[in-house]
């Protein structure tokens, strides 16, 4: 049984049955300065460490009338809602260590697309952003403004608990907040007695402290109120083990997508990143155990047998992605529109050709979010007219669609608005 199908065991129904209306019940705190012009409200970034075998992905034809390819076949039902991009990259140098520039742009460590977007659109959601990995992650994918790589959640059970905390977890959070009030009372009285012994200059410093304490008290109130809100009840049965062993990666991937769809539906977060690992996992697909680990397959050296097995793995990635897009179509937002209409899904990589560790021509797919879809858009950097179009230009368009007014992203200063918006 393929892991993707295997996962059906755990999901009782395609949708979720809710104890309460969800998006509608939450206060509309997420309204942001960006949202007035926003056509999309959520961003999902998926990064595949080993990329995709582009000969099996890219259609020969450009535009709308392309013949479906092996890797696009599982996504055929979403054809009208997605775009395939070829020929875009960050003009960065090669090698595994440059992989993390997938969302950074030209330089590894620059604030990533997801974090820039989260900073603008995530006000009021429970989690400004979620960083998740399926498979052990060997490279960072998301960087903060301060160039700090963000850790990723590797266990579905951890993500589940974070999103839909169990009774015990909520009790602990509530306890820590309530008892935290007595802690603040004590430190306030210490600050007051300190205040009487210090200079005018130091009183300014202590004012910072008092102001912070008052603000944290208000934050605690808000958190307590949030905790009083019923937890979104979702009808997903988690397996009694965490699929973190290497060869269960596809199962983990599928489960993570399910949880991501639920996180978006419950408006727990609007920016989610998922990393797809690529180490030595030996997969069993449709009962057939592959002849080499995923990473070894990616170094195929044009061996057709290896490519066949590599593409088998990548088809599974595409099936998982397709199922995720289907879920976003079935689930709806507060206005009753399909979630996908206002959710941008970016599937990409920092690796154009894993066999050669080449970081040019990064295969990229974008679905949903109200963009003009249904085409294969090919770019050629050897064409003087397109020589300066980079992947960051697409990111700028995604940001514009999310209501942001950015003009530059890393080495990109144009955009693809004219093609997509």
């Amino acid at each position, binding site marked *: 049984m393929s892991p993707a199908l295997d996962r059906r065991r755990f999901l009782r129904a395609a949708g979720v049955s809710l104890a309460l209306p969800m998006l509608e019940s939450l206060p509309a705190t997420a309204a942001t300065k960006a949202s007035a012009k926003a056509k999309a409200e959520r961003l999902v970034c998926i990064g595949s460490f080993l990329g995709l075998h582009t000969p099996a992905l890219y259609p020969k034809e450009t535009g709308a009338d392309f013949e479906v390819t092996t890797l696009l076949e599982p996504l055929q039902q979403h054809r009208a809602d997605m775009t395939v991009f070829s020929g875009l990259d960050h003009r960065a140098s090669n090698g595994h260590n440059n992989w993390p520039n997938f969302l950074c742009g030209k330089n590894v460590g620059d604030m990533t697309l997801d974090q820039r977007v989260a900073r603008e659109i995530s006000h009021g959601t429970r989690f400004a952003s979620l960083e998740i990995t399926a498979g052990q992650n060997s490279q960072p994918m998301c960087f903060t403004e301060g160039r700090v790589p963000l850790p990723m959640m590797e266990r579905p059970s951890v993500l589940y608990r974070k999103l839909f905390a169990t009774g015990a977890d909520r009790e602990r959070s509530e306890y820590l907040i309530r008892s935290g009030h007595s802690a603040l009372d*004590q430190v306030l009285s*210490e600050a007051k007695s300190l205040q009487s*012994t210090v200079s005018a200059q130091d009183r300014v410093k202590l004012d910072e*402290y008092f102001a912070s304490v008052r603000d944290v008290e208000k934050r605690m109130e808000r958190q307590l109120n949030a905790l009083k809100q019923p937890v979104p009840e979702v009808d997903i049965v988690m397996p009694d083990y*965490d*699929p973190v062993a290497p060869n*269960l990666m596809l199962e983990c991937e599928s489960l993570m997508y399910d949880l991501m769809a639920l996180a978006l539906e419950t408006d727990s977060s609007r920016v989610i990143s998922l990393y797809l690992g690529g180490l*030595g996992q030996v997969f069993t697909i449709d009962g057939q155990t592959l002849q080499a680990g995923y990473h070894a397959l990616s170094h195929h050296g044009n061996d057709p047998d290896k490519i066949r*097995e590599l593409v088998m793995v990548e088809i599974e990635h595409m099936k998982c992605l397709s199922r995720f897009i289907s879920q976003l179509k079935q689930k709806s937002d507060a206005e009753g529109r399909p979630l996908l209409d206002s959710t941008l899904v970016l599937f990409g990589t920092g690796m154009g050709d894993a066999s050669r560790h080449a970081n040019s021509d990064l295969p990229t797919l974008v679905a949903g979010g109200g963009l003009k879809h249904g085409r294969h858009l090919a770019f050629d950097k050897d064409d003087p007219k397109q020589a300066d179009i980079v992947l960051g230009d697409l990111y700028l368009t995604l940001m514009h669609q999310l209501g942001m007014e950015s003009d530059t992203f890393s080495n990109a200063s144009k955009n693809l608005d004219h093609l997509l918006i």
Partner: protein
Amino acid sequence: MRFSNALHLALVGASLSPVIAAEKIPPTPLNFLSEYCLDCHDADTEKGKINLDLLEIDWTSSQHPKLLEKVHAVLENGEMPPKKKTQPGAEERESMLQWIDASLTKNIAPGGTPLRRLNRTEYVNSINQIFGIGFKLPPSFPPDTRLHGFDNQGEGLVLSPPLLEAYAESAAVIADQLFPPPLPVVEKGIFDIRPTDMAISYSSGKRVGGAMRLGCKSAPMSRSCSWPTKFETKGSGTYKIRVQSTAFNPRDDQPLKLQIRARPLDANDGTRVDTLRLLGEFDVRPGDPQTFEFSADLYRGETLVYYFANAELDSDNEDKDELRALLEKMFMDDKRLLAAWMSVEHNSGLRGGVGWKRVKTQLDRDDLDLAIADPQPEEAKKMADIMVKNPVNYVETIIYQYFEQGPALDIRKTTIEGPFESVEDPATKAQKRRRSEFLGKQGAKSESDWIAAAIEGFLTKAFRRPASPEWVAAYHRLFDDHRASGHDFDAAMHLVIRTALTSPNFLYRDKGEGQLDDFEFASRLSYFLTSGPPDNKLRDAALGGRMSIPKTVLFQADRLLNDGANQNFIRSFTQQWLGLHELISIMPDPKLGRFRDSDRKALEQEAEMFLAEMIRENRPLTDFIAPDFTYTSPDVGSAIYGLKFDKAQKKKGTQMLRVSLDPDSPHGGILGQAGVMMATANGVDTQPVLRGVWVLENVLGDPPPPPPEAVPAITPDTRGAKTIRDLMAAHTSEESCARCHQKIDPLGFVLENFNPIGQWREAYPAPSPKAKAPPIDATGTLPDGTALNDVRDLKSYIVKHIDQFGNCLAEKFFTYGTGRAPNYTEHKQLQAIVDGVLKKDGGTRDLLLGIIGMEAFRAK
């Protein structure tokens, strides 16, 4: 004794005088100002935003003293009045300077550090010292702001609500390490594990029939082992484990060794097997599966690992001869196999089962040419040689032959039953140890006295001074109230810890007024030299009231300056003074050669080991500029400095060595270290202005004012039509630019011989493959007329004017140590310290100790 000089110097220092609020400017200076300055700097024109139209000096404002300092500086170095304007006579100028100097010295008292919040490093070190844990900040923890070049400045270290919230969150995580909430009780269970639920990583195993077959013993778990994918120990305890296994085609009926070990499920799959806890080792024989039953402790979060300990194949042995011998024998025993391997195409695709299939296709050919394997010994050796060069890939393929032919180890069913008895895992043991150390022994004390004693001990450490009875009472009350509201002992202690760790008494240092008291001073000294809170010895000195005795202070400082204790200071100070924290974000242009993380580390270590020696050996300040030694690794030393290393050294390419430098070498010292040159460039090209400003700020202590607004950065002309010197010519032709750039540009150009990673170069990269590489012109003239040909001339110049560098370094040490930039009075005192060190042929350690001995260093 090493600090005798410094002790003497410590006596230098101004006595504090009362500060007057506002003071009328006497007629002579007032006339001077109106005659020579007000043309441009009156209230209307305010050239350069400077208004000198004053009648009195307000010493309580922060503006006026700074303004006067500025006037003093430009008058002294002759920058003002501008050459074109009327100049004051020498005597007139001198008396004006004297008046300003006297007024500033009289009115500006040493001191002025605001309450200093612990920065990230200091916070972590404090936590780990208080609790003896290995706490690390979460990545989301807010960063600190840098001011005056350092991240430990009172004014820069602000507190914001998100930061206080982050402190509160961390405090709960820390308290969990001593007083965690109780774990849920785990029920006993039975878990059956079949080969379909066992992991395969790379080519570590293969499912054959009803078994997981293992064939190699490589050290990384991911290369050799299998483990249950769906079993994770929920509760630490004793488990009964039954493993069914059989040996597949062992040689000469020798038993195969099966090791069962324990791994944390969250461990990196590449972890070495020998670091995992061994639970049992068994001799496995061929034939019917044998059942091995044993009892073992499994800890929460662990699962089993199966390891074939005496397998023949090993891709990870550092000694390649074992693998080579195995392969040669294999090819000597089977000529057909050798011929097949010789006939297959060896590209990167030959890996794993797919690769083995290729070899087998050859093996099965009826027309396989066996003659190519002649002479067999030579060909077998050649093939083995090819294979041992890439053992990981080849073993991943050859292992499939073992999967088919053996010897291989088959794991069948595993049953795990338990937990029968709960056991304390190492994490719990450590937590209980910390808990009992925190609480101390109750002994004959009442519970209340016992708790009070624990609280007192904790607050004394956390607040870095003896806990006052009021504090102890308040925290005791917090504890009692929490218990009274229905929470248990541990929860109440958890709250005590959480509270203290968000208290201003923990988060802030440099409390009080005037001179710091012994405890605050012990903290200042300790955070200065170790980035951490006072250790026991320093605490004892403060408790004993001895931190007011200069001899004790210098003794303690000298102790903390010893290698080991001062590692954090060395690292943090070099990172910030020399800007090495930039290195992590610089990606050198691949055209400059391969640059690895280990190279970056070597550059950081060079600067650190250099400063450590300067302090340890009390080396003269001139060695910062023109030393005859540096530290480097053979890798970096040969690639960047062009140094020669012997074979044994090259073998350990990343190991740091102390190397002597030729007297004529441009490398070495803060004006030649590759780390500094890299940090002042951007990885791709050099920017003379940035380097020039860097030298002014960090070597000569004469920072230029910020650049004017609306001046675009210079874009390198990649076509090579204009040299960078042409592009910068405008700096000297425009008078407003020239004022600063006549200082900046020669310092930047003279460093142009260092490329963006600090290699010496004589020419810029050619703009195109066919074009000529433009030669470097590093020449220039300093404002005082000194001609520079290359960096060696700059070094001689600074060595000649070493007091200027000394003043700059003293200012950096002082700023880093006190959390404030020195004011006018403190500057003069620092200069006196530097002069004293130089006169007595003292060194770097003398300078540091001299600064620590200053009254100003102790001033709040």
